């Protein structure tokens, strides 16, 4: 049987040959575009090389947009439909269902990590802080958009209250909804943004949409709005904000649940 064994080296060179042949045939519609598939998984050399462009996009957009350039805001007349729910729309987690049954009276927002004063805020405490209301367009990475009016507490006020330590670089959001299941247990949604977006004037912890309390399908009791990025950067069902200095302890190390599954960490485009 030995003579039928194909050495790993041969397989790699064959794959490289296929890729090269496909490159050479660019401009001609190939009979199958699976030639690149094996080169594109997370961590592969080609994939990592192409991902460098994401860093360039991030730096270019940060340079152009600066800290405080505002996302466009719209008028009441532009609100033509309920906010379209996406992703998890009814968490099946016992913790969440317990909190929901009590109308979130026992829910708290924890603020922890690299802060001087860890916080534990109730809904009332959050809603008694100064609020911001904005009519903005939600852009999903899939391509659709939906305009809604969001009301919430500016994240910068919460960060100021907790006093962020100088070594903190990112805000990590911990959520109550299970987005995926793995051998090591349920994976609850998580994500990060940098402190520039965290302190952006339109970045709010929203508890209301279109003049009503945030419904379950849109992330009750609290979700994030990061208006200069795509929807996957705005976690729902929030219960903890953790200030971190890197992604080492954030899921798979790429800065968020969807990032660990191949999306760009910076969702500005």
């Amino acid at each position, binding site marked *: 049987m030995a003579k039928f064994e194909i050495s790993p080296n041969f397989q790699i060179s064959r794959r490289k040959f296929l890729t090269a042949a496909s490159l050479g045939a660019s401009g001609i519609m190939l009979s199958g*575009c*699976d030639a690149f598939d094996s080169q594109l998984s997370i961590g592969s050399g080609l994939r990592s090389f192409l991902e460098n462009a994401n860093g360039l*996009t991030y730096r270019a957009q940060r340079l152009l*947009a600066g800290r405080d350039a505002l996302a*466009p805001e719209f008028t009441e007349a532009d609100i033509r*439909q309920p906010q379209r729910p996406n992703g998890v729309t009814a968490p099946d987690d016992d913790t969440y269902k317990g909190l929901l049954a009590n109308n979130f009276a026992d829910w708290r927002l924890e603020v922890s990590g690299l802060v001087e004063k860890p916080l534990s805020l109730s809904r009332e405490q959050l809603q008694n802080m100064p609020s911001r209301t904005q009519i903005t367009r939600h852009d999903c*990475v899939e391509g659709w*958009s*939906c305009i809604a009016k969001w009301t919430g507490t500016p994240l910068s006020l919460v960060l100021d209250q907790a006093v962020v330590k100088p070594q903190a670089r990112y805000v990590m959001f911990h959520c109550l909804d299970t987005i995926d299941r793995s051998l090591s247990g349920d994976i609850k949604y998580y994500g990060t943004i940098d402190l520039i977006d965290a302190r952006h004037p339109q970045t709010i912890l929203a508890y209301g949409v279109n003049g009503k309390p945030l419904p379950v399908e849109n992330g009750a009791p609290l979700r994030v709005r990061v208006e200069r990025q795509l929807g996957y950067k705005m976690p729902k069902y929030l219960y903890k904000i953790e200030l971190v200095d890197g992604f080492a302890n954030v899921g798979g190390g790429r800065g968020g649940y969807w990032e660990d599954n191949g999306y760009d960490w910076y969702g500005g485009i």
Partner: protein
Amino acid sequence: MESVARSQSATGPDAPVSSDSTLIYRQSRWTRLTHWIWAISLFFMLLSGLQIFNARPQLYIGKQSGFGYNNTIFEIGAENTNAGPRGYTAIFGHRFDTTGVLGWSGPPGNETARGFPSWATIPSYYDLGTARVIHFFFAWILTTTLLVWLVASLINGHIRRDLAPRLDDLKRLPRDIVDHARLKFHHTREYNTLQKMAYGGVLFVLLPLMIITGLAMSPSMNSVLPFLNELLGGRQTARTIHFTVMLLLVGFFIIHILMILAAGPINELRSIITGWYRTDPPAHDDKTTERSA
């Protein structure tokens, strides 16, 4: 130096059938290099773009996508019928059965619901994240190359000499159309009117419009250039324009290839690879088509 057309008598093994035809240096290295970088970039941008489109195979008009109302003008989808699952494509409400290609496709017995088929997307399987990585990588390459080409072509005179429209172009347009329709091509140093319109249209209209509508879809760029979407009619209209320009570029590509095949692929390919182009012999054997019509 490349702006000056050099010519040489064709001799040696490459000698033409007619001793009157000449090889001229037609395409500068900047034109040739940028041409092939665009070819590769557009190939990957098209196939990754179709993958991105598959995540939401609908196009809308306006600022947002209608869920509580209808502003969908284009849709690819799949539905269950008595004859099993079928793929369909709807354009302005007109439905077409596109099973096997759009909406429902795959190996026999293993079909799945997907907008564009796997042979037209990179990766072949559904993977929005990876397609975005590829798309934005080549977006940088494409845009940079366009800027490099613009600067080089302004300096070496390519735009002024070869692409800028002249009054004469208008006069010869009707005959150009007739000649193209009859697949009768003149191999000259200058582009004919239809070529100028096609290349100029791609370089000065379609590619810039593609870049602008691409930027208009970016929520971060919207904070820098908020007027862009207002100008274009809203983010979802920008997305629809982005898709339409893709169709026009694919149309350009098909005609481009057909014209190269019809006009003589060896000569045309040589000029875009080496720069050297064999022109027609002077008009003595071509008296019926006077240059000054």
